C-alpha cells in the first residue's frame, strides 16, 4: 500500500479544504476504496434483485381486480396458497421431485467425483472440463433431448419396438414425475460433481495415510475420514440442485405431463393466462420460504449428524 502513504503525505502538509481532507481519508481507508470499487456491482444487484424482491413482497399482500391492483393490505393470497389443496399438492410434489432428483444426482455423482479426485492423475483438467461443458449448453435443448428419448415414438420406444422386444410403446416413459426426475438429474449433474470434487480434492492425503497406518480398512477409512470430510461438498451439491429445480417449469412442461406439473407451472400461469399477479407473487414467496426452511433444516441436521459421528 505504498501508493497510499506517498500520496497522503504529499497531501498532508496543505491542510486546506474539506474536499482534500476527504480525499486523503479516502486514500487511507482500505474499506472505502473497496466499497467504491464494489458500488457499481452492488448498485446493479440492488436494483435488479433486492428492490424487485421488495416490490414482489408488497404486491403479494394486494389483490387483483381485473387489470388493476387493489392495494389494501390483505393476507388472502397467503391463506389461499396454504389452504387450497391444489396449490399445496403442487408444492409438495415439486419438493418431492426436486428432493428425489437432488439425492439421486448426488449419489450418482459422488463416485464420479471420487474417481477424478483420487484416481485421475494425468489430464485432470480435461476430465473436469468434460464434466462441466454439457452444463453450459442450452438447457432447453437438453430437456428436449429427453423428450426425444422418452417420447411415445421416441428413441427408447421405437428402438425397443425395432428390436422386437415390445409390441406397443411404453406409455409410462414420458409425461410422468419419473421422466422429470431423470431429465433434471441429467441437466443438473455438473452442479453435483463440482462441489463434491472440490471438497474431495481438498482432503489432506496424509490423513488417509494416517488412517491406513492405524489399521483402517478401505471401507472404514472411507466412512471415517473421506466421507465426513467431503460432507460440505455433498451438502452444497444437494442444495444447489434442490433449490433451483423446485422453480423449474420448462422440464415439467416438456416431459412432465399432467401428473408431473410443478409449482412453477402454477406461478407462471398466474402471471400469464390466469392473470392474478398478487396470487403469483404470494405463491412464489410461499415456495421460497418453504424451500429456505427445508434447506436450513437440512444443513442443521447434517451438521448435527456429522458432529455425532466425528
Amino acid at each position, binding site marked *: 500500500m*505504498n*501508493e497510499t502513504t506517498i500520496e497522503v503525505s504529499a497531501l498532508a502538509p496543505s491542510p486546506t479544504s474539506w474536499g482534500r481532507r476527504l480525499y486523503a481519508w479516502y486514500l487511507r481507508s*482500505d*474499506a472505502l476504496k*473497496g466499497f467504491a*470499487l*464494489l458500488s457499481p*456491482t452492488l448498485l*446493479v*444487484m440492488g436494483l*435488479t*434483485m433486492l428492490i*424487485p424482491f421488495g*416490490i*414482489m413482497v408488497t404486491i403479494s399482500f394486494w389483490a387483483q381486480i381485473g387489470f388493476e391492483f387493489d392495494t389494501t393490505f390483505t393476507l388472502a393470497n397467503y391463506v389461499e396458497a396454504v389452504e387450497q389443496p391444489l396449490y399445496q399438492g403442487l408444492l409438495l410434489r415439486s419438493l418431492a421431485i426436486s428432493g428425489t432428483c437432488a439425492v439421486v444426482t448426488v449419489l*450418482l*455423482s459422488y*463416485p*464420479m467425483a471420487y*474417481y477424478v479426485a483420487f*484416481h485421475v*492423475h494425468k489430464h485432470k483438467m480435461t476430465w*473436469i*472440463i468434460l*464434466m*462441466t*461443458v454439457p452444463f*453450459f*449448453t*442450452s438447457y*432447453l*435443448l*437438453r430437456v428436449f*433431448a429427453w423428450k*426425444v428419448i422418452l*417420447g411415445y*415414438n*421416441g428413441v427408447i*420406444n*421405437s*428402438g425397443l*419396438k*425395432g428390436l422386437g422386444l415390445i409390441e406397443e410403446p411404453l406409455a409410462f416413459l414420458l409425461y410422468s414425475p419419473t421422466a422429470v426426475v431423470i431429465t433434471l438429474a*441429467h441437466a443438473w*449433474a455438473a452442479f453435483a460433481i463440482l462441489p463434491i470434487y472440490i471438497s474431495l480434492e481438498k482432503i489432506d492425503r496424509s490423513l488417509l*495415510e494416517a488412517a491406513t497406518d492405524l489399521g483402517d480398512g478401505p471401507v472404514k*477409512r472411507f466412512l471415517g475420514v473421506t466421507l465426513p470430510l467431503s460432507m460440505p461438498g455433498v451438502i452444497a451439491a444437494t442444495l444447489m440442485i434442490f*433449490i*433451483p429445480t423446485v422453480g*423449474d*417449469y*420448462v422440464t415439467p412442461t*416438456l416431459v412432465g405431463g399432467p401428473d408431473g406439473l410443478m409449482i*412453477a407451472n402454477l*406461478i*407462471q400461469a398466474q*402471471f400469464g393466462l390466469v392473470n392474478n399477479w398478487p396470487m*403469483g407473487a404470494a405463491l412464489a414467496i410461499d*415456495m*421460497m420460504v418453504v424451500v429456505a426452511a427445508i434447506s436450513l433444516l437440512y444443513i442443521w441436521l447434517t451438521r448435527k449428524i456429522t458432529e455425532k459421528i466425528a
Partner: protein
Amino acid sequence: MTEVAYIDRPSRALYFYAILYLGFLYIPVLFLPMFSFNDNIYIAFPLKGFTTKWYVEMFNNQPMWAALNNSLNVACVSAAIATLLGLFGAKAVTRYRIPGEKLIIFVIMLPMVVPYIIMGVALLILVTRLGFDLSLYTVTMAHVLISVPFAMATLIARFEGFDQALEEASADLGASPLSTFWRVTLPLVFPGVLASFLLCFTISFDEFIMAYFLAGTDPTLPIFIWSQLRFPFRLPGVLALGSLILVVSFVVVFISQWLRRYRVEKTQPGI
C-alpha cells in the same frame, strides 16, 4: 509406503463407472444431431436416410435469424456489463479489506441459488410498475443479474492467482493507479476476463426462464425454439438449429473453461 498406494491404486470398477457416467451426460444430447440428419418428419427409429433439408429449411427461416440476432445482441451486451461489474467486484474483494465482505459476497452470489422464476417474476413486476415496456433491454438486465455471480467467481479466482507485489511494484515505480490497472493488472487477469465474458455470453444465450417473462414482442432464440416445440412438423428444424447451437456452445464453453484454468505463470505480462 506400501499402503499409501491406496490413493494411486487404479480402480477398474470406478473407471468403468466414470465412462458410463460420461455416457449418461453426453449420449442424450447426441441424439439431437443424429436425428437432425434423418430424412423423416417423425423423430423415431429406424433411421430413414441422410438429408440436410432440415438445415436448409432452418436457414431460410427469417424469424429464426431475427431471434438469433436478438440473442447475440443481448448476450454480448449483458456479458460485457457482467464482466465489467465482476472485474470491479473481484478487484475490490481480493485487494481491500472490506467490513461485511462475506455478507456482500453472499448477496452477489445469491442469484446462483435463487430459482430463476422468482427473479424473473420479481423483475417483471418491477418493470411494469415503473411503466416500462418489456423489451430486449429488460431481458439484458435480467441476464446481467444472473451472470454477475459467475463473472465474479471466475475473476476472483484469477485475481487470487497472481502476485499482488507486481501491482505494488508498479505503484512504487511511479505509475498512477489507472496506468497500473491498465498495464499490469489487466494483462494479468485478461484470460479471466475473456473466460468470464464467454461464460456469461453462453449463460445469456441459453437462458429461457427469465427471458420468457421479460421479453416483449422481440423473442430471443430460446423463446423462438420454445414456440417451435408446440408444432410437431417444426421439430426437425429445431433439431437442426439445436445441433448447430450445441456445436458452437461446446466450442465456446470449452475455450472459456480452458482459459479459466490456464495457469497464471504462463501469462506474465508483456509490458
